[in-house]
């Protein structure tokens, strides 16, 4: 079983806490919590490093300027916050191949890393096409009762559930 179990908090407590953070972001920073634009900006920064300033001419990067902004710092904070939490709970551990993946595809690290890369490409592309991710649409957008965000939330999970059942469902 999952070794994290004993360190897990009630999902209702965690959810209420996240809802309060969404409100704080709005009140203190006038920002809706979201993560996926940080990836687009970082990608632009990396491209700028390789190809120079002409990257800034791409229409998409005129809309999402490749620079460190509030959301970028938020995503950096998520890494640090999860690190602190897992160190305090003792849940921190180096994980190469997660359990359910191993049950389905075996313990090959190369296979899992390739799968994670492909999954990541689809996530990054899909999130930018849909205009947000599980936090930007799924929590902040739905909380604002945005029609597009509820639609996105629905299709994230339809795509996710069908794919998960097809891939891991036989376990």
């Amino acid at each position: 079983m999952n070794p994290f179990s004993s360190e897990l908090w009630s999902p209702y407590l965690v959810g209420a806490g996240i809802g309060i953070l969404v409100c704080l972001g709005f009140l203190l920073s006038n920002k809706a919590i979201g993560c996926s634009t940080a990836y687009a900006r970082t990608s632009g920064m990396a491209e700028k490093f390789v190809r120079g300033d002409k990257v800034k001419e791409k229409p998409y990067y005129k809309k999402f300027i490749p620079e460190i902004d509030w959301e970028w710092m938020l995503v950096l904070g998520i890494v640090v916050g999860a690190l602190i939490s897992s160190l305090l709970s003792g849940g921190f551990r180096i994980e190469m191949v997660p359990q359910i993946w191993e049950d389905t595809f075996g313990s090959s690290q190369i296979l899992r890393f390739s799968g994670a890369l492909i999954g990541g490409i689809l996530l990054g592309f899909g999130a930018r096409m849909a205009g947000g991710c599980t936090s930007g649409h799924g929590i902040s957008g739905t909380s604002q009762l945005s029609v597009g965000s509820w639609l996105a939330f629905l299709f994230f999970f339809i795509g996710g559930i069908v794919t998960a059942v097809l891939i891991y469902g036989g376990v």
Partner: protein
Amino acid sequence: MLERLHGRKKFQLFLGFLIGVGFGFLLDRGGATDFNIIVNQLLLEDFRVLKIIFTAIITGMIGLHVIVKLTPAELQPKPCQWKPIIIGGLIFGVGFAILGLCPGTAAGAMGTGAIHAVFGVIGMLLGAGIFASVYTNMEDFMADSDLGPITIPGSLEVNKWWIILVFSIILAAIMFFLERAGL
């Protein structure tokens, strides 16, 4: 007072970081930084992740609308471009299941020592970069189905507090039945 706070750029970056630390901490305590917990949610075997999201929506929905009522702050709903949302949402969903994490929780998973999540993050950078490169070819497609930043109470022409009440009851009822069913 809040507007002056919003204008302090460097302090805002620090605030973003602090809220991120809180978010990452909670995601980890909720189990959402764990591939197995996310995949078990997508397999509909353990509803922990949806319980977190539903509770966050109820809290955020009530809180945000109270803030809008009491302060000069305004909501910033995203445009409803329904075609790219449906297609992009499904592509996102496929990646969600394969990586077993999403953009926020993958960042958190890296913090908990998940090396495979690093490859997911590299993939997301590539995917976002690919989208930025093909964006010029897709601008028409993106704009074509844009209904603007519409909201549910606005489209239905119903008082938003009724929608908030009804949605809170529905989400709470779903969670109540999930608990009773032992999920």
